[in-house]
């Protein structure tokens, strides 16, 4: 029972209390660059979750045999291997998504969330907890991406998942799809999250 509770806690902390994007403010570059449409947001979230799961699993498995002096290079090699796998898989099965995400797929390597979880969690905890942690963090990241991209796509393009939501007379505010809109959306969302958690 205690194990189950532990697992639950490891999973849910990634979604709100330690949400990577809104609370810890890590992994910003992809959350802003590719959040122009919900499809891209989900794609990026799933790719990052896959890499997070793979790297947490492997790092946790070899945590007792890795010399602590060279652990960072080891982590980076593990992470970049999984990123390469994800990159090739996305290119093979969803070429359109691969084109939309562009260089931000290889850039998952330097996404601080993944290295931070490997260093702070997976290298110290058993495999099962590390998997829960990876899934929770991945879910929190995906959720954040879906929220950001949902707002940007709805206001900047008048659609959600490509379906028009505001009717034919809506003039899309294109700025929100472009760079300034990304910064503005994330800034206001972080402010909102701070406001809500302060009220509690």
């Amino acid at each position, binding site marked *: 029972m205690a194990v189950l509770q532990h697992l639950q806690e490891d999973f849910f902390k990634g979604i709100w209390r330690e949400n990577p994007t809104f609370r810890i*403010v*890590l992994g*910003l*570059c*992809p959350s*802003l*660059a590719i959040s122009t449409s919900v499809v891209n947001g989900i794609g990026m979230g799933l790719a990052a979750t896959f890499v997070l799961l793979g790297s947490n699993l492997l790092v946790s498995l070899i945590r007792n045999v890795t010399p602590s002096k060279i652990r960072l*290079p080891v982590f*980076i*090699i593990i992470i*970049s*291997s999984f*990123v*390469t796998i994800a*990159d*090739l898989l996305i290119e093979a099965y969803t070429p359109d998504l691969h084109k939309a995400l562009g*260089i931000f797929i*290889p*850039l998952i*390597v*330097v*996404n*601080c969330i993944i*290295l931070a979880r490997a260093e702070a969690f997976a290298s110290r905890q058993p495999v099962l907890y590390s998997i829960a942690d990876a899934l929770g963090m991945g879910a929190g990241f995906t959720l954040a991406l879906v929220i950001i991209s949902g707002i940007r796509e709805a206001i900047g393009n008048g659609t959600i998942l490509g379906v028009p939501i505001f009717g034919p007379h809506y003039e899309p505010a294109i*700025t929100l799809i*472009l*760079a*300034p*809109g*990304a*910064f*503005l959306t*994330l*800034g*206001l969302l*972080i*402010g*909102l999250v*701070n*406001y809500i958690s*302060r009220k509690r």
Partner: protein
Amino acid sequence: MEKFFVIFFGVVLINNMILSRFLGLCPFLGVSRAFKPALSMGIAVTFVMTMASIVTWICYTFFLLPYGLEFLQTIAFILVIATFVQFVEMVIAKTSPPLQTALGIYLPLITTNCAVLGVSLINVKEGYNLVETTVHGFGGGLGFTMALLLMACIRERLDFAEVPECMKGFAIGFVLTSMLALAFFGFQGFFAR
């Protein structure tokens, strides 16, 4: 000559690493609280970015391409950049201690700066030759420094402003960045006729 000009101003003003390509945001928000550390960080990034562009280009053209190993570029680049940053750190520690104190912890941090890896990947993707790569890397670093310094100047004044409690820190930082990005939009279409 004209091509270099276009690449250089393109990456400094129009496709600025931070404001339009969203690369290197962590150091941008982390080190832009005051002018001086921002300047040190900018110099360190410009130097590493220029050199890393050259090194990764050589690595790609002479080691990966001839053997059909392009799919290994992510792993190869990150290793080359990490090793290179370590090497630069040792050289600076040996030859110029004052510079080392000035750069401090910023140098090792650059390894995880996605702008450096991003520039290297863009170089390869755009198919630049060695000189164009160097210009692109240097311009990218310069554009990064400029955005960082602008932000630092604004944030130094922001200390005296009354910001709502929940917007303090990152939240207002992003709203400011949004304004900066909007201003830089004026350069869009600079070279298009």
